[in-house]
């Protein structure tokens, strides 16, 4: 089992073999969506996606829903020295025109609370992100290995 997981981890170092078809909504372009396979019994998981605002007006990511989680929140993880700090983001995240909001491990990210099912590596799960102007946007997240750090090539 250990070997299998490690093998998965090594394989994951190679470029993930999935297409990054952008999801567009108004001026927003969402790419590189991924989450991580959960360890047994885990009740939370992080979600990661890159959101580019190609439009002329600012928008704001306010939250979302997922069929596999009781709640979807926005969190910020940061390291202060050797201490990991996790904070819930209140009021959403603004995406100014021409800017990119990168939700990624070790920074701002989506948090799935109260998982109702495990997330299995290799699958794709759809989540709905809610924007102030663009409204609800369904984005697929690829389920990568538990320690995945990026969904990019």
């Amino acid at each position: 089992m250990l070997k299998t997981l490690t093998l998965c981890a090594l394989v994951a170092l190679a470029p993930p073999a999935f297409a990054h078809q952008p999801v567009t909504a108004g001026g927003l372009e969402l790419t590189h969506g991924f989450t991580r396979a959960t360890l047994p019994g885990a009740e939370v998981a992080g979600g990661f996606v890159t959101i580019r605002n190609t439009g002329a007006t600012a928008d704001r990511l306010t939250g979302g829903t997922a069929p596999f989680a009781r709640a979807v929140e926005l969190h910020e993880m940061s390291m202060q020295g050797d201490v990991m700090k996790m904070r819930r983001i209140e009021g959403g995240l603004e995406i100014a025109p021409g800017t990119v909001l990168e939700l990624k491990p070790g920074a701002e990210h989506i948090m799935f609370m109260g998982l109702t099912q495990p997330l299995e590596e290799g699958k794709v799960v759809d989540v709905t992100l809610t924007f102030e102007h663009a409204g609800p946007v369904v984005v697929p997240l690829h389920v990568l290995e538990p320690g995945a750090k990026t969904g990019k090539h």
Partner: protein
Amino acid sequence: MQIRTEWIGLAAAALLAAAAGWFLLPAPRPDATGPDARAAIGKGDYVLTTTAGTPFTAASLTGHPSAVFFGYTHCPDVCPTTLGDITQWQEALGPRQGALRIWFVSVDPERDTPATLADYLSWSEGITGVSGTRAETDKALTSFAIYARRVGDDADYTMDHTAYVMLFDRTGDFVETIGYQEPIEQALPKLIRLLD
């Protein structure tokens, strides 16, 4: 020298936290009072329980080299990442890793029962979960000079916590740390030194 740098990092983190008015738990830190404080790391009269049902005390760190990591199962990022790193260290060490005992101590015993921890770690080999009462956990946090703080009042609270892996020699003395996401090229020599 590496250790010294980490101590400075710790001191900086403590200052930052204090400046922002955060409550620091526990008070003693490896950088606080010099060699005596350092020698006391991991020592103390805490009594926790392993996922195997055996007691975990300061004596558990003697007789073999140990790696100790503090975390919790509701941890979305640091803990799975570090557990993944640990399995890579184990693979890289090969047969030598058998001499190393690895402990995952919960900073969130209210949610991490021994059964929850055992399930969470069931995929791993050679990583033993440790949990206990809040009082004994707090004693252990103080003994290991680990910062841990609950954030949020509802059921979905998270825990801020020190994220490095602590290495102890076979006499139970603290040696050094492996930092969060420290590259395996740096982590492996530390482990090999520990096992030699």
